[in-house]
């Protein structure tokens, strides 16, 4: 018996849905092993996690609370990833957003009309996040400096800076780690429990981005840049300008997440603002396959995992990091599975069977499909490719076949290096 990957004739849409779901299952399975090894009953633990997250109004609103920054940073990361700009600095952008929003809310309230402070603080958060993402963007756009490292290094800088502020520079006199509370007129209103109006901002941005990706020139150009930057350059699309503009927006959205945390949740700059949402955002964006609406869904799920993790720490004395481990585990089966979008897995028993299949022409090519089984969906594509031999024009087209495409890819190799 031998396993073999075969290239599909078109992208499988089903795999795009099945694979994330399967990844979630695999991740839970792996977590179960880990729990058993560390002496806990996985079923009980998972039940406790689910109960903690969804079993009470309080739990649900807490899930909402955590999903706000996750949705926003997830969207920011997805936007940058869309053009294959590896912005892994959402954590720093969020932190700087929180710093700027707190700064404006704390120190501008004297000179300005009270009603302006909330919008100004939110705006300050956006700008700070944008600047924090803009620096790596400019370095990438004009000097081609690797962005994974610069965005990541700036995370450390941002977190150290915010620590300096709430431990030293802005520390409230009778507080160990935190500033004064920000004035009430600068608060984001709460809607349920601790969940605040930031959720509406997140949802609105998600819908907006979805429309941008689908219906605008900008979204179209981002996709081209992400899929083939050389082609983008050739098509007259300015990559440098798009990198800068896109990253300013991406950073602003993550900055908004930080502003929301300060203005809606903690109401002061304090420890616990930078708790890794910006990293979870990477998992969210990729799990959602960079689809903004998918981001909302996955962010909610990740928030539930985090809340559930907190709950089992209290109830079962297990480390809360179980939730983090499960989150971290999610991407791995997801990555392993993404190949099935373009390839299908075939199981064949012996070599002579292969040659048998082969003599029967194309008609039952799908027969030995194991994973595939989606004849209905790919049927259209296969149908027309099967009929290739018949038409007059199609005859010539077919003979343009593989050797032709191999040849042109080859020339791709030489042409690209020239």
């Amino acid at each position, binding site marked *: 018996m031998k396993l073999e990957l075969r290239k599909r004739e078109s992208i499988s849409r089903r795999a795009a849905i099945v694979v994330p779901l399967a990844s979630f299952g695999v991740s839970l399975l792996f977590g179960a092993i880990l729990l058993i090894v560390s002496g806990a009953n996985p079923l009980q633990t998972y039940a406790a996690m689910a109960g903690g997250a969804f079993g009470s109004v309080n739990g649900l609103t807490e899930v909402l609370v955590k999903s706000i920054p996750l949705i926003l940073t997830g969207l920011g990361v997805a936007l940058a990833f869309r053009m294959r700009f590896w912005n892994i600095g959402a954590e720093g952008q969020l932190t700087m957003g929180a710093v700027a929003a707190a700064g404006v809310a704390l120190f501008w309230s004297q000179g300005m009309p009270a009603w302006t402070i909330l919008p100004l603080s939110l705006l300050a958060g956006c700008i700070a996040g944008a600047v924090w993402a803009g620096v790596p963007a400019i370095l990438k756009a004009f000097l*081609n400096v690797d962005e994974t490292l610069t965005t990541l290094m700036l995370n450390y800088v941002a977190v150290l800076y915010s620590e300096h502020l709430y431990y030293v520079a802005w520390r409230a006199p009778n507080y160990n780690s935190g500033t004064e509370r920000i004035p009430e007129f600068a608060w984001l209103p709460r809607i349920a429990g601790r969940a605040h109006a930031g959720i509406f901002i997140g949802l609105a941005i998600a819908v907006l981005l979805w429309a941008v990706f689908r219906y605008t020139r900008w979204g179209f150009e981002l996709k081209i840049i992400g899929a083939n930057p050389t082609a983008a350059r050739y098509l007259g699309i300015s990559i440098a300008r798009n990198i800068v503009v896109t990253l300013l927006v991406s950073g602003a959205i993550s900055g908004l997440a930080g502003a929301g945390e300060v203005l809606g949740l903690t109401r002061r700059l304090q420890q616990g603002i930078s708790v890794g949402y910006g990293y979870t955002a990477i998992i969210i964006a990729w799990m959602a396959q960079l689809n903004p609406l998918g981001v909302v869904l996955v962010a909610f799920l990740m928030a539930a995992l985090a809340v559930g993790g907190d709950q089992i720490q209290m109830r079962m004395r297990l480390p809360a990091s179980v939730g983090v481990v499960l989150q971290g585990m999610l*991407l*791995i089966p997801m990555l392993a599975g993404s190949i099935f979008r373009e390839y299908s897995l075939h199981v064949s028993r012996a070599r002579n069977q292969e040659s048998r299949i082969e003599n029967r022409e194309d008609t039952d090519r799908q027969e030995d499909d194991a994973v595939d089984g989606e004849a209905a969906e790919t049927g259209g594509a296969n149908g027309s490719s099967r009929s290739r031999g018949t038409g007059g024009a199609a005859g010539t087209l077919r003979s343009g076949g593989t050797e032709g495409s191999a040849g042109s890819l080859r020339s791709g190799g030489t042409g690209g290096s020239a």
Partner: protein
Amino acid sequence: MIDTLALLTSILTITLRAGASLIYGAIGETYTERSGILNLGVEGMMLMGAVTAFATAYYSGSVWLGLLVAMGVGATLAALHAFLTVTMRANQVVSGLSITLFGTGLASFLGERLGPASNNFNLVGMVGPRFSPIEIPGLSEIPVLGAFFKQDLLTYALFLLVPLAWAYLYKTRNGLNLRAVGESPQTADAMGIDVIRTRYRYTIVGGMLVGLGGAHLSLAYAPGWSENITGGRGWIVIALVIFAMWNPARAVLGAVLFGGINAVQFRLQAGGATTIPSAYLNMLPYLVTIAVLIAMTWWEALSHRIGAPAALGTPYTREDK
């Protein structure tokens, strides 16, 4: 004068000690990237190496067993990365990130789970066996250069490993094959070199060395376990590889630079001789990394030199080229 020499010696001593884990990591990552595989999982692998090395040494009493386990763990995570990127052709950036996220989470879970019951299963704050500095009589008394002879065994091992790693890459058949796979996998394949196997092999070897780097942190440099013991060293390793232009010998220079920053920072804070807030001092390594990257990229652009293996980051398949 004597004081200045003593100060220099002590700074260099700390520099080397702080740089050792970076050198292990950088050699490992250099080998991985030379095969065409970009592994951004270094930070997670280092953390996992550190926690497992310490836990193993703590319970077994053997630092050597700790090293072995850390190498095994590094190799396992690297093998996972190789599986995802080579066999399943997943995006290398995202796969590396996921290894880092997963490794970070699992390391912190293990740190809260592997400790003794008396400490609520927490490893933080436990004291275990370690590699202590060994002063070589005579040599260690030389001013300044004596710093090279007041190191722990793992750092001494580098005196051997660095030249070997360099010679292997540039002077041997295997090194030739490895470089060919990273530069032009099509060519390597047509010349009878197994691209898939080579990529697996050196990704795993790289993971072992990165795991060792992590073990050096928890067994020698800062013995014990704390949640964020690497402090981004895994990422600095990746920057070092770029700085060294994928040459294991040149990575030493970079590691000394970053170790030196650590040492200076350490001296300034310990001496209390500065009014600069510690947060700003702590930012230094990260800001210097960015500065170094900018300088290197600029220099490459000006000199039309590209240090990176040409096929870095691209999967290879034979039939549907």
